[in-house]
């Protein structure tokens, strides 16, 4: 069912009991529901309801946020955060970049820290952005080779070389 005021789906069905013209039901999308129920509204008798609904909206928002986090897949290996949570193992190194904000609370929980203070590889790869990019590119090159897209693989390989040759002081 579509919102009464726009093309979006109607996710709120508000039964107004005290309005002029007697009880009636409104079918509106989230945005229009918020507008209708906001304390700025000149409609009398909606503020208490607004309070309840706005806190419900907050809950719904975080549920939606969680749902969207669970769905966004890593572009390199395709794993979703939900899958990771089920099996307790990540899919590929790039996940640490892609799911960075979601992993942070977990790392703090496990280790009491989210920053490495220890041994580094001798061939350092420069700035964090460059490291991210290199992880992603290496995987893309592999895939291009597997799919026999050799021209693409060569392009990626050249880009990797360029990135590796630029020193960290950029």
């Amino acid at each position, binding site marked *: 069912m579509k919102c009464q005021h726009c093309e979006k789906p109607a996710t709120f069905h508000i039964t107004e009991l005290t309005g002029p013209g007697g009880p009636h039901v409104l079918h509106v999308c989230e945005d229009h529901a918020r507008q209708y129920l906001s304390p700025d509204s000149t409609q009398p008798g909606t503020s208490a309801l607004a309070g309840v609904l706005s806190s419900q909206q907050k809950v719904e928002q975080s549920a939606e946020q969680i749902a969207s986090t669970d769905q966004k897949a890593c572009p*390199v*290996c395709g*794993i979703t955060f939900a899958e990771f949570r089920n*099996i*307790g*193992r*990540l*899919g*590929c*190194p790039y996940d*640490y*970049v892609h799911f960075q904000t979601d*992993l942070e609370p*977990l*790392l703090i929980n*496990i*280790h*009491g*820290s*989210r*920053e*490495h*203070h*220890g*041994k*580094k*590889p*001798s*061939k*350092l*790869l420069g*700035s*964090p952005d460059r*490291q*991210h990019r*290199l*992880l992603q590119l*290496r*995987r893309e*090159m*592999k895939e291009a080779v*597997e799919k026999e897209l050799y021209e693409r693989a060569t392009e990626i390989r050249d880009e990797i070389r360029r990135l590796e040759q630029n020193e960290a002081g950029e």
Partner: protein
Amino acid sequence: MKLDELAGKCGEWLKGTGPEADIVISSRIRLARNLSEFPFVRRCTEGDKRSILRAARQAVEAIDEWKDVEFVDVEPLSDLDRQFLVERQLISRELSEAEGPRGVAVDGTERFSVMVNEEDHLRIQVIRSGLDLKSAWQDAAEIDDRLERRLTFAYLEKLGYLTACPTNVGTGLRVSVMLHLPALVITRQIEKVFRSLQKMNVAVRGLFGEGSQFTGDFYQVSNQITLGRSEEALLQQVEYVVPQLIEYERKARNFLMTNSEHDLHDDVSRAYGILQTAKKISSDETMLYLSKVRMGVNLGLIRELEIPVVNKLLIHTQPAHLQKLRGKILNTTDRNIERAGYLQKHLAKRN
């Protein structure tokens, strides 16, 4: 095949030398590493795993100083051979039971091994006899450097070395020490001791690693976190706890010797007697009695036996070792008979 040669030998770390060797059996350093251009093992295709195995083999074989290191392809090995490697602590149970292309590089004197395609692409493992974490760590770091020259490890400046499980990210380091604590068990203090350890970021496990039962009073103590501290700091966390454990065990042993020497001597002698004369014996029983005998040797109650012999017996009486030494597959009953025979032979000349 080289594995058969290993069977008769006694690995470096079993020799029972090394600091505090009466209570500390071994010190172990494990480093987890992954190659940057592949998914983590669980999400790898068969082709990926093969490529990783090939890259690891090439890297290992290119290291000039590693002439004595053998690269073993684990996938085609028989159940017996894989079990053999697990008993010898050269591979984990997980690698043995995993599927697909996987392998291990083993040093000739068994001072280190590098597993390929276990939970992470590479797991470097260094073992030392007794309490010797610093030198084990130095060796592990060197192995890491050598491999890293020929491979590119997945690493981010902020998070360190990237691993399949976030519980290993950062240093990828697991430090563990294996201890023999029979007196703490006899005096029923072991539970209390473990509870106090839990507050110190230290985990405790049985003889063969994660998820195993505590057999023979052998316990493994290791760090729990891997991120946010340097490797040296993580080593120190474990090093701090071990001397306290050693002290508790020594006190408990002294207590037993002072207050119930006869009971202890009797207990130890009976264990020794059974091992010398039984005609069939299970590995659980063997572990139980060898643990007592080991303590007896340490306390001077059994004078004609040395620790290296006891350590060797602990390994050689394990199921796969027995069969390898005998040269044939044995069912449980036959193994129990074989085990008793082996013990009798190696303990008999002491009288």
